[in-house]
């Protein structure tokens, strides 16, 4: 052990003297001043186009024997799923672990287990990825297995039936969770059933998916032409490029990045409360908001500052008021879901049933407040900017974080110098900017308020607030009579 008793005793004696001396002079009311701010070190990376058309991004980092490897496909379920086959992306992702031309599902699982790692596959709304984190020593064999899954999967029919049955159980379980119901209904009322952002897998669509759907979907989706391969960690650019070219030699070229053209949003409607009944619920789950801007908005920095003041942090206005001051909740917050499309602005949280009406008033008060009725203070503005700028170094702590951050810049079409520019953009945001973007992107005249809770207890009090008319919806977001 590094510790040595003699040294510890000597040190203790030294500290005893020094602390006794310091106790005389220490003024605890003085906040210790901050030291010199550390310079922002954004990792650097190289970009190369591989022979199959995929973009290879490599960021070397040699402090630990670790590598993060991921292939990100630009475009996701919202671009490539049919409305009557929602869920095919997720099932296809899961089917990649069910066997290849040379390894069955058990053999794949065993091989990965003995390497001490796992390959994860996930397809989200606007992008998908297949990847892993390994030690340096197990990078090559793990990459070989990933390539086998990507190119040689056999999609056994019996596996699809098992996975489908598991999905259906998960859908049933989710229907009992107020958080899941709230997010689903919120998306449905904001975007409507014919917009990809208003849809999600349901029992009908999951039951309709055939093996042919999965095979065709895999063939069309997993294409190097829309792939960003990001490798971060204990590798060299040259070595990893050769290894990736070799491992993915059988992945045929082709595929384009999708255009991300979303259908028009449904016509707006006046502010409305949508109430979903959950009899006996101990809390009411709130989701309040409207469709928001894409990640490419020129107002991104101002929106980040505005949301940090409103609901992005513990001491933001919403949580400081509704949790800390009023005690109605264990936590409320707000935020934007930035992407290529009009992802939502949302404010919400779980509120004790008896205070649902009072909490609604407070939510509305804070949303109007950030739009100008409660002026932004100098301190709020400074704290929000400090938090946003000074948190950046912490975003680059792990190989997986670095990989995710770089990939996200590339997928969103942002410049490599984004973070350096972002620091400047945040620092020049004014109070006027905060109010302007709050008004522009939070449309309180036409927002939707979705509340999942005990209708028998809360409907009357919610109505009495006079905030908005109430429409009763079911768990799927359909009108209930």
């Amino acid at each position, binding site marked *: 052990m590094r510790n040595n008793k003699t040294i510890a005793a000597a040190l203790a004696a030294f500290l005893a003297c020094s*602390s006794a001396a310091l106790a005389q002079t220490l003024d*605890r009311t003085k906040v210790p001043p901050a030291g010199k*701010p550390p310079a922002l070190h954004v990792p650097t990376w190289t970009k190369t186009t591989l022979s199959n058309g995929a973009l290879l991004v490599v960021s070397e980092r040699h402090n630990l024997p670790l590598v993060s490897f991921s292939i990100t496909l630009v475009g996701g379920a919202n671009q490539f799923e049919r409305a009557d086959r929602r869920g095919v992306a997720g099932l296809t992702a899961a089917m990649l672990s069910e066997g290849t031309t040379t390894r069955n599902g*058990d053999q794949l699982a*065993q091989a990965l287990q003995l390497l*001490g790692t796992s390959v994860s596959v996930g397809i989200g709304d606007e992008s998908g990825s297949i990847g892993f984190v390994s030690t340096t020593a197990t990078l090559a064999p793990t990459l070989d297995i990933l390539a086998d899954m990507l190119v040689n999967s056999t999609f056994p029919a019996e596996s699809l039936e098992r996975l489908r049955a598991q999905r259906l*159980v998960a859908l049933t379980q989710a229907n009992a969770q107020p958080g899941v119901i709230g997010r689903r209904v919120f998306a449905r009322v904001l975007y409507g059933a014919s917009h990809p952002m208003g849809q999600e897998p349901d029992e009908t669509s999951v039951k309709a998916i055939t093996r042919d759907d999965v095979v065709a979907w895999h063939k069309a989706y997993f294409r190097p032409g829309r792939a960003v391969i990001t490798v971060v960690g204990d590798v060299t650019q040259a070595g990893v490029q050769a290894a990736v070219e070799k491992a993915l030699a059988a992945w045929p070229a082709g595929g384009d990045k999708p255009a991300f053209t979303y259908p028009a949003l449904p016509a707006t409607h006046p502010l409305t409360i949508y109430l979903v009944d959950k009899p006996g619920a101990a809390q009411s789950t709130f989701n309040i908001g409207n469709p928001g801007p894409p990640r490419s908005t020129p107002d991104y920095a101002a929106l980040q500052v505005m949301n940090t003041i409103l609901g992005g942090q513990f001491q933001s206005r919403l949580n400081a008021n509704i949790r800390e001051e009023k*005690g109605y909740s264990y936590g409320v917050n707000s935020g934007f879901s930035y992407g290529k499309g009009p992802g939502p602005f949302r404010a919400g949280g779980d509120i004790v049933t008896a205070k649902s009406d009072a909490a609604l008033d407070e939510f509305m008060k804070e949303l109007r407040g950030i739009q100008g009725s409660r002026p932004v203070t100098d301190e709020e503005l400074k704290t929000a900017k400090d938090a946003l700028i000074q948190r950046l*170094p912490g975003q680059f*702590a792990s190989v997986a974080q670095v990989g995710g951050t770089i990939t996200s810049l590339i997928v969103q079409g942002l410049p490599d110098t984004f973070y350096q520019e972002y620091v400047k953009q945040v620092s020049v945001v004014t109070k006027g900017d905060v109010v302007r973007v709050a008004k522009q992107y939070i449309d309180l005249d036409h927002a939707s308020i979705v509340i999942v809770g005990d209708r028998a207890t809360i409907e009357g009090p919610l109505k009495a607030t006079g905030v908005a008319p109430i429409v009763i919806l079911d768990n799927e977001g359909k009108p209930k009579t």
Partner: protein
Amino acid sequence: MPRIFRLTLIVICVLAASIGAAPRQAKPTAASSSAINIPFEKHTLPNGLTVILSVDKSTPTAAVLMWYHVGSKNELPGRTGFAHLFEHVMFTGSGHVPYGLHDKLTEGVGGSNNGTTNNDRTSYFETVPSNYLESALWLESDRMGFLLDSLDIAKLNAQRDIVKNERRQGVDNQPYGRVGEILASTMYPKTHPYSWPVIGSMTDLSAASEEDVKNFFRLYYAPNNSFLAVVGDIDPAHVKGWVAKYFGDIPRGQPITRPAVAPVTLAAEKRLVYEDRVPLPRLYVEWPTVGVTSDDAYALDVLGAILTGPRTARLTKALVFEQQAAAGVSARQGSNEDVGEFDLMINPRPGHTLTELEAAADAIIDRLKQEGPTADEIAGATAGEELGFVRGLESNLGKANRLADGAGYHGDPGYFKTEYAKSRAVTAADVKRVANKYLTKGRIVLSVVPLGKTDQASKPGESQKVGGVQ
């Protein structure tokens, strides 16, 4: 039980990374075997505070973790929930720190903060840009030394309300949310320190007087019951000076008598059925086992990984893949400081009863008890630990947790090396032995069923009803 819900996952990841096991087949390279290390130095102040420092300059950030050796087991029946209540109160200001400043000097400067409470310990932590380290130490010292100067009944009441909301969100309004407290109150006798939930009884919280709460603080939140880990972009000489300056004059507290925690066994199987607002029934089985101070915990961890997890694990393969009677199954050892439990959970597929699944799971477990696992199973179950350990090194907070857990539970911040070696040393014979020793008839079998559907319980005729949804 964290102060802020959204950070829970991070904590779980840190813990999960520490539970894995070691590679036996993968050849350790020079780079990776030397990576199983966290360099640290330790010293103790005259007032008893243990200080652990570890330098990692990879990012200009630092983690401060204050580990108090107090959890719900230090409470008394009728006065439960205090340790967790303090987790909340500790963020509301102290003698020289007005309300809100703690958040401002952590998340407000680009860092973060939270706390967690379990049966055995409470930990409070901040991550900050490294130039704010001194103020983070000042904040921690002020709430250790001067919390009660600013604690009044109004503050207590406000935090009690928030804790009640935390319980509503995590327990009452969650499907299957009461399972944990039903199992604990069935496993342990009423006076046993592990029998009540960490979040406590809402009645006890309401009944607690200001003086009750303050006395609890005076005893347990003293430097002699505390471990401070500071990890990241730090200069140890500076940090030692700051620690001496801010913590040195906080007086040592009274000697602490730890609760006597008797191991429990169940003489016979306890069968229960609980009706809840759930869409599908679910089966929970729990056996009493051991805590972190017993070497059997390592073999029980491996046993869990051999039973469920990857598709080749025995219960997963049989119930989910071959019989296709379950949508999911999980088995794991949960090790507290003094005692532990081995838990099995089965999610049935429609058309399959809990009775059928219980019998199928028992048959698989019985076979494992007779045969013991294969060498390949041991190798597979333990191969993930090296990666898990090295990934844990990427987080200053993860390292601080490991160092403080080692110091608090084992008297050695470097205990992670012992844990790693003990995980690697688990043999097939060890797993067979612990399976036979602990997975016995003395267990709890709890069926959670939809309201009014007690007939969906496993062996409904033999299962006793437990208190229903309020």
